[in-house]
């Protein structure tokens, strides 16, 4: 690492010290890459698990059940022990071609020139505004992540009787988080007829006496300075639920604010960075790993992805990655929501060996993959939203010259 004035030169700069970024740093160091820095904008490294004050984290990485904060601390320790340098309160403000970064620090701006950059800025929940929800904008409207930071990191309580919108896995974390702060959610509402998370998550709700209202949609938020209630519709009928807060849960979206302002391509389907199976972005100096790639995987998945991509970056620095041509583009049609990676270089092994897919609604039927000449893969399946669907790349017979792979469903 060389530093002159406000200019830093490194082999690899990693943006984000969450599970993915920390894992990649650990792997890169193990592979003997010397100058690695992790740039983290918060005052502490660890990412989202820092404020998930509950288990289970770390079973596959550390063979034990940890809470989020303990897991985060272990990851930080692992990366630091491996020799990675973590710079907190370093906010990357600009991504430029060929690995040039602008970074804000409390001591002034610095520029970083990296041979390779890994973007691992994670995922967040979609706030109320982006969901275009009707109503006033009083205090007391939040997301699970914000609530977790308030309660687990700061011991602050924003309300006492909130309504929880959504039934994803994280929605049940919201219940646990709430109870930790002495908050009693009055209801969970779900627009479908079943919870989005896996059985038996609903037992958390019933154990805590939080009713789940199915086939119910949030209609209006009511309240002037504070939330006073929400109107919901159930089978076309409207009714009011008395509450003093609203927790919008799930509906994750990759944190690409920074990347959106750069030259890198964003995939409108996943909302994340567009990559090939070697995790390379549209500018091959940039790689991406973790939940910036798609909504949403577990911390453990993001960690393993970080390790994989760390190894790929090391390969690349040793000139062991294939050039990124010719490429096949993956295109999905509703109800398939996303395919990651979006670009495949045919005839290569290594890199991500599986395609990750998701659907937008519950579907039953045949998933089909078609190339320029016809169907190359199909399988009967029944899937619901927010479940990972994995297709081994080796099961696809990819022909040279193919331009586009089409993914669709026959119901």
């Amino acid at each position, binding site marked *: 690492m060389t530093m002159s004035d406000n200019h830093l030169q490194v082999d690899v700069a990693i943006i984000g010290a969450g599970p993915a970024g920390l894992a990649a740093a650990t792997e890169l160091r193990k592979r003997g890459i010397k100058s690695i820095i992790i740039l983290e904008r918060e005052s502490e490294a660890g990412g989202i698990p820092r404020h998930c004050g509950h288990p289970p984290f770390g079973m596959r990485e550390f063979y034990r059940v940890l809470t989020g904060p303990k897991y985060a601390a272990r990851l930080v320790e692992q990366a630091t022990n491996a020799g990675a340098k973590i710079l907190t309160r370093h906010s990357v403000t600009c991504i430029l071609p060929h690995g040039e970064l602008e970074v804000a620090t*409390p001591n002034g701006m610095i520029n970083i020139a990296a041979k390779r950059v890994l973007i691992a800025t994670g995922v967040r929940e979609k706030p109320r*505004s*982006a969901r275009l929800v*009707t109503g006033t904008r009083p205090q007391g409207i939040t997301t699970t992540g*914000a609530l977790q930071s308030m*309660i687990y990191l700061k011991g*602050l*309580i924003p309300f006492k009787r909130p309504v929880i919108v959504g039934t994803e896995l994280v929605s049940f974390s919201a219940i646990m988080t709430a109870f930790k702060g002495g908050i009693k959610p009055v209801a969970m509402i779900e627009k479908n007829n079943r919870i989005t998370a896996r059985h038996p998550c609903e037992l958390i709700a019933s154990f805590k006496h939080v009713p789940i209202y199915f086939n119910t949609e949030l209609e209006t938020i009511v309240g002037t300075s504070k939330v006073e209630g929400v109107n919901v519709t159930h089978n076309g009928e409207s009714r009011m639920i008395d509450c003093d807060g609203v927790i919008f849960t799930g509906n994750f979206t990759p*944190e690409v*604010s920074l990347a959106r302002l750069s030259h890198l391509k964003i995939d409108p389907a996943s909302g994340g960075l567009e990559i090939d199976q070697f995790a390379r972005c549209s500018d091959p100096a940039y790689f991406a790993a973790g939940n910036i790639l798609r909504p949403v995987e577990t911390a453990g998945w993001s960690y393993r992805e970080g390790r994989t991509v760390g190894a790929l970056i090391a390969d690349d620095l040793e000139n062991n990655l294939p050039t990124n041509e010719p490429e096949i583009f993956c295109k999905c049609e509703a109800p398939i929501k996303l395919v990651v990676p979006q670009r495949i270089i045919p005839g290569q092994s290594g890199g991500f060996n599986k395609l990750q897919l998701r659907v937008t609604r519950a579907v039953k039927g045949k998933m089909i993959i078609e190339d320029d000449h016809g169907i190359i893969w199909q399988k009967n399946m029944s899937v619901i939203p927010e479940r990972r669907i994995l297709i081994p790349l080796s099961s696809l017979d990819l022909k040279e010259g193919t331009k586009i792979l089409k993914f669709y469903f026959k119901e």
Partner: protein
Amino acid sequence: MSSETGIDSSRSGAKEREIYDVAIVGGGVVGCAIARRFVLEGAKVILLEKGVDILSGASKANSAILHTGFDAPAGSLELQCVQAGYKEYLEIFRNFNLPILKTSAYVVAWTEEQLARLPDIEKHAHQNNVTNVHLIDREALLKSEPHLSNTALGAVAVPGEYVIDPWSSPLGYLTQAVLNGAAVRFGYDVAGGQFDGDTWQLKSSTQESIHTKFIINCAGLYGDYLDQSLLGKSEFLIKPRKGQFIVYDKSASALLNAIILPVPTERTKGIVLTRTIFGNLLLGPTAEEQDDRSNTSVTQNELENLKIAAENMVPDLKNMPVTATYAGLRPASECKEYRVFEYQEKNWITAGAIRSTGLTSSLGLASHIFAQYSKMTKPHTPPENIKTPKMPNLAEHAPRDWTQPGYGEIVCHCEMVTKREIDNALSSVIPAHDLSGLKRRTRATMGSCQAFYCSARLAELTKNRLSHDLSIARNGDDNE
């Protein structure tokens, strides 16, 4: 809710009864600009605002366009004030360190019928003395706005329409007033008053009386009520007109250079697409009549309609994430003109129904009102050394606090708001009293995550420093 501010001089001094030259009722952009003008002219001023902060009414949500007046009704007071306000803003903004984004605007025709009306718009603009307004054809329009849908047929170019900071400007005006002697009282809801032929005694439901020789009604959405309750009559009726907005992600601001205006209808200026001074792209407003004078709720239907309209104009908006939604209320009345009334026998002027151009016109209106006032009263002596505040820059295109060392930490990551900025906003001449006030002074929580990442830290930093804490308790506190 009543609150004292450190800037209230009347409370700290002797108990002796203070008599102001002028009490300004309402801390919207109009009240702030008028307070400034009167202080600069030497009057002893107090501004009374019922909210915990300035900009609690119509002025908290607008499109932030600095209008040239090209489309204002010919010969109207509105036109006169818009043009005087525009001119004065351009004269003073640098001294206040206020920003300006020189976008220019296009009035775009999307139908043959609208296209046929463009020459009249140009002619009207020239009559209003906005002489650089000119027609441009479809090719020229699409060349300078390549992301605009190619269904556009032509446009009128209005080079002088700009974008400003809708919050720092009025805050700057009132800060200057305070630095040069004005008093401000928040939480002061003027509920009644008596005039003895020389002095008014104003009453609020919660605070002590204020004595003043003259009153200027700048109560915005409640202007008619104030006239009604203190003068016994009102010559106008406020008819609130709601405008909903969508704020797109910062990346969307690259899709447009100029402000895209529609060909106006009788009722409204119509839906606008404009970059904001904060680096986003703004879409709106709707125009919805309602009776309620405070309800600024957004509705999913209208927001979705807005999005469709925008995507028709700029197809690339389809994949752009929405950052925020909000609504504002225009203090419109039963007719199109501003409603300014002078009641000499009551030492009273009403600046009413400043509906959809007040951000621009406020400085001009302030001079107009002062001129009217001067005809009714004895002259004042202007102060000698006038102090001008340097406002913290919130504009995206100019260096912000985070580029300067020593900021401590970034609190709001999306908008890059520093701890130093938060601390300053909580201790400035007119400090923030609630989260909205803090947002307007710093941009905190206005970004794409809408407080996902920063609300906990923000709640911690502002604990016991705002009128409503962002948290209601600490974990483990014994609360009911």
